[in-house]
């Protein structure tokens, strides 16, 4: 039955080449932990992507309860983790995932660095990777404020004060981030929410796509 449905669709829109294009590539022995256990270091990149998937999914579900408003943000987070079944777990996945993704990203970066895998012709992919790292830090910084608890509020205040120290554009930069020249408040929260949920994920998806396409085009770096 399933095979028939597949054939019916494939006859009309020829989907086999699309997924075969993703599936058809070889994995050399030196990156395969099944043959050589020390190759587990090559798993860090894949695991980073796995945590990103966890973050996207848990984040999407969290917005079903969360409101980015200073009077209700904290209450909605408190409600979802104390009253909603499994809310504690979903928020836990997003919270701990944010830390684990940084750890995995760091391990992946160090693997690539110490193997010199960024050397010609893979310079561009390294740069894309570092940009992904920056986007992740941005996601961490903006996401930290969203529960609107004390640690979120004061950490953001410190972060914005640091931005204000930048010469010439500091004050403007801070106002642009915070939405107000002197208050960290309602407009800061909505801004950070928009950046955390729409702007940075959009940038992340674009960069991830480039990262993966480049890996497929160039192939994985050879053994040392």
């Amino acid at each position, binding site marked *: 039955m399933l095979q028939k449905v597949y054939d019916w669709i494939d*006859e009309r829109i*020829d989907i*086999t*080449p699309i997924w*075969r294009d993703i*599936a*058809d*590539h*070889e*994995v*050399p*022995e*030196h990156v*395969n*932990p099944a043959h050589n256990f020390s190759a587990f270091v090559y798993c860090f990149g*894949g*695991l980073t992507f*796995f*945590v990103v998937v*966890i973050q996207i999914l848990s984040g999407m579900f969290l917005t079903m309860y969360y409101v980015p408003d200073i009077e209700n943000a*904290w*209450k909605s987070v*408190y409600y979802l*983790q104390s009253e909603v079944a499994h809310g504690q*777990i979903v*928020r*836990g*996945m997003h919270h*701990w*995932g944010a*830390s*684990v993704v940084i750890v995995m990203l760091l391990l992946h970066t*160090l693997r690539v*660095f*110490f193997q*010199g895998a*960024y*050397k*010609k012709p893979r310079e561009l992919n*390294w*740069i894309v990777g*570092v940009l992904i790292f*920056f986007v992740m830090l941005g996601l*961490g*910084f903006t996401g930290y404020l969203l*529960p*609107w*608890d*004390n*640690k*979120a*509020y*004061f*950490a953001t*205040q410190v*972060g914005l004060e*640091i931005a204000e120290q*930048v010469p010439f554009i500091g004050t403007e930069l801070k106002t642009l981030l915070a939405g107000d020249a002197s208050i960290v*408040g309602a407009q800061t929260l909505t801004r950070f929410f928009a950046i955390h949920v729409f702007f940075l994920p959009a940038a992340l998806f674009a960069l991830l796509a480039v990262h993966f396409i480049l890996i497929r085009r160039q192939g994985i770096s050879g053994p*040392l």
Partner: protein
Amino acid sequence: MHRGKGMKFVGDSRIKAEKTSQIPKDYSEYPGRTEAFWPNFLLKEWLVGAVFLVGFLILTLAHPSPLEGMADPTDAAYIPLPDWYFLFLYELLKYKYASGDFILFGILVLPGLAFGALLLAPFLDNGPGRRPHQRPIAVGMMLLGLVSVIWLTYTSASHVNWQERAEANKPIPESSVVVDTEHEGFAAYEASCMTCHGAELEGSAAAPTLVGIEYTPEEIATIAKEGTGSMPAGIFTGSDEELEQLADFIITVNESAE
């Protein structure tokens, strides 16, 4: 692959009538034990992913994600702390040559150099050798950066009493506390306890919350007089009757919170 003349299409579409094979390519001619990504290698990767997921879910179950009390911009006694992966930057700014007159060095020059070098690493380290010992400068710089970040993070984190912090900033749902200012013990609470433990018993930087404590009235009375932990003795100075009313007041508020 068919090209040009003789190609057959489905109806008037551009879909080729000839179907692509769904069998993986043969990689036996490749060096070593090369295998197909799909499905051979992906299965192994997903097995690793499954083990990882189990560990991750155990972490989320074992450690509920922390939530502190609702943000209170007037709580000036709160000592701010960023998330752990920003701690090293935060700690850096406490040093003399990264703060005060040298703040630009701390917030722009040092991080700018470090992250700029990371971004442009392939161009700074552009020799042909890939092995670490063939590029001692790049590897040395990375190790130096890594060690400083780990050390800064450790120094910053070791100053913090995490447990005390978590205790002092527990979330209290606003609605659950009913403070009956008509209660005969309220006057004693207002006089002796409120400055530190707050108008709604929510606590402050100086003292923990009194909501959710599991003491008997007698124990509360003893603590009010003799102190406990960092609370000194002799804070309560009223009569024994007032002390009894105070303990009763605290118990009443606690009962209202349940």
